[in-house]
């Protein structure tokens, strides 16, 4: 069996940045395993711009952003394999992958970084009512078909879900000649970034129907029409509010789910984000297994993915070097009122000046405090005039506030009292 210090599963932005982070920390015996015929992952099909403002202080397209990291990895001669699929990861850190070129390869790793990204929630997962014809696609499928293969999925399109990829595809399909008749969002607020609401919908006069969902799909072979309805507070369609649209395509942008099956299969505990429950070193409950990027929790900005993944790489390197002990004492972090999830799930004090907490709120709120409560005592309150679920929050909390690094920390949203 081959022995490699660090195996990274996934060669997209997270995997590449993790590799760079580990390499720069001194671990050079790395292998990145990527399933596509190229590195860079999903960024390659995200041909729109807006990537890299934090990381490079430039506004790049997805392929350009990916290229920067591909080159960073290549400059360091970090080894990678393409068109290779990981079949299994064992608790003993044996990684098995398969490819046409190499057949079956087994590697004994010292540490593993999971960086396999996420997948899109499907029509079946939410059970869209009505017929199940062709022409119901996820935004990512439509994006791949259009931007990499050169095929338009339809002429008249409706979009369910206001996730960013859906909004971006609304613009993209419009520019390529399709008529996008509208976007329905089941929540009373948009799930995409504000800038995408403006430059993808408003610019092209595409209506957004908030608190609406697709209540029926019609079509025996291909989509013929769809019906949308307003929903009540329990998200059930309200009778009498139906509107129909004659479309040949329904595109779904209804959420992303961490693609964490390989680690789920060996029983690594997961957190509320559906990725691994990790500590502040991105290490899971299984020693030497790290996770970062969208497989850990779904990000809205790749700049945050690479920053997180570099850290994960750094800590994986320290683990390999014997400099990252699992401490007995640690704080368990939980999502309190109004908070969807928090990463990390555990904090083990390590001398760092600050500790980063990443989370999403459950609904848009104004004039609130994000309140950190450690063992019953409020240790920090951060005022936010506006906070929305579609934007992940990152807050760096001074580690000195975390006391002895034991007990329970809850992050919650508290409405500021009006004077």
């Amino acid at each position: 069996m081959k022995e490699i210090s660090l195996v990274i599963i996934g060669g997209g932005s997270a995997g590449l940045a993790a590799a760079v982070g580990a390499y720069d920390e001194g671990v050079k015996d790395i292998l990145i395993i990527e399933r596509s015929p190229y590195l860079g992952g999903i960024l390659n099909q995200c041909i729109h711009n807006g990537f890299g403002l934090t990381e490079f202080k430039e506004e790049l397209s997805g392929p350009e952003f990916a290229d920067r990291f591909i080159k960073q990895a290549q400059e360091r001669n970090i080894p990678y394999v393409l068109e290779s699929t990981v079949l299994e990861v064992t608790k003993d850190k044996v990684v098995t992958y398969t490819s046409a070129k190499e057949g079956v390869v087994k590697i004994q790793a010292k540490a593993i970084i999971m960086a396999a990204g996420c997948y899109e929630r499907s029509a079946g997962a939410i059970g869209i009512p009505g017929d199940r014809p062709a022409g119901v696609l996820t935004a990512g499928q439509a994006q791949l078909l259009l931007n990499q293969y050169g095929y338009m999925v339809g002429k008249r399109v409706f979009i369910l879900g206001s996730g960013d990829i859906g909004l971006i595809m609304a613009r993209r399909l419009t520019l390529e000649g399709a008529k996008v008749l509208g976007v329905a969002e089941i929540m009373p607020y948009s799930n995409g970034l504000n800038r995408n609401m403006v430059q993808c919908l408003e610019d092209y006069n595409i209506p957004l129907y908030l608190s609406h969902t697709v209540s029926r799909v019609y079509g025996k072979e291909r989509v013929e029409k769809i019906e949308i309805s307003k929903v009540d507070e329990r998200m059930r369609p309200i009778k009498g509010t139906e509107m129909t649209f004659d479309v040949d395509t329904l595109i779904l942008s209804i959420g992303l789910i961490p693609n964490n099956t390989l680690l789920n299969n060996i029983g690594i505990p997961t957190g509320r984000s559906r990725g691994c429950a990790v500590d502040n070193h991105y290490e899971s409950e299984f020693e030497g297994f790290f996770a970062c990027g969208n497989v850990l929790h779904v990000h809205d900005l790749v700049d945050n993915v690479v920053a997180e993944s570099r850290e994960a790489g750094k800590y994986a390197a320290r683990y390999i070097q014997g400099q990252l002990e699992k401490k007995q004492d640690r704080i368990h972090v939980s999502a309190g009122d109004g908070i969807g999830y928090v990463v990390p799930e555990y904090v083990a004090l390590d001398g760092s000046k600050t500790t980063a907490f990443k989370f999403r709120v459950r609904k848009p709120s104004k004039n609130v405090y994000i309140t950190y409560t450690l063992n019953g005592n409020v240790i920090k309150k951060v005022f936010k005039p506006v906070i929305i679920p579609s934007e992940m929050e990152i807050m760096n909390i001074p580690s000195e506030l975390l006391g002895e690094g034991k007990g329970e920390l809850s992050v919650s949203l508290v409405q500021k009292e009006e004077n």
Partner: protein
Amino acid sequence: MEERDLICIVCPRGCHLHVDKDLNVTGNFCPRGAAYGKQEVTNPTRVITSTVRIENALLPLCPVRSNGAIPKGKLFEAMKEIDKISLKAPVKIGDVVIHDLVGSGVDLIATRDMPVVK
């Protein structure tokens, strides 16, 4: 000029801008927001991204973008121009694909390395 409330699209932060009739911008987090606010009410512009047909590469299309913003009203005209051309691999990131896209003074550049694949 009329007063307008805008959402800044310069970066994903999405600041809520207010532009008054003297083109004073408030609500911006950074100077780029102020510039955007002024621009948006006087001469709105957008970066355009698309693809161009390419031969002898791994994929049939090469992604491209305008190397700067072009007038918003010229987006569809730009698409027509973009869709006319085709490339041959190899193409490098940053290669200029169209000079002076729709007379905007902005170039269209390739955004992915496309080596020759047989």
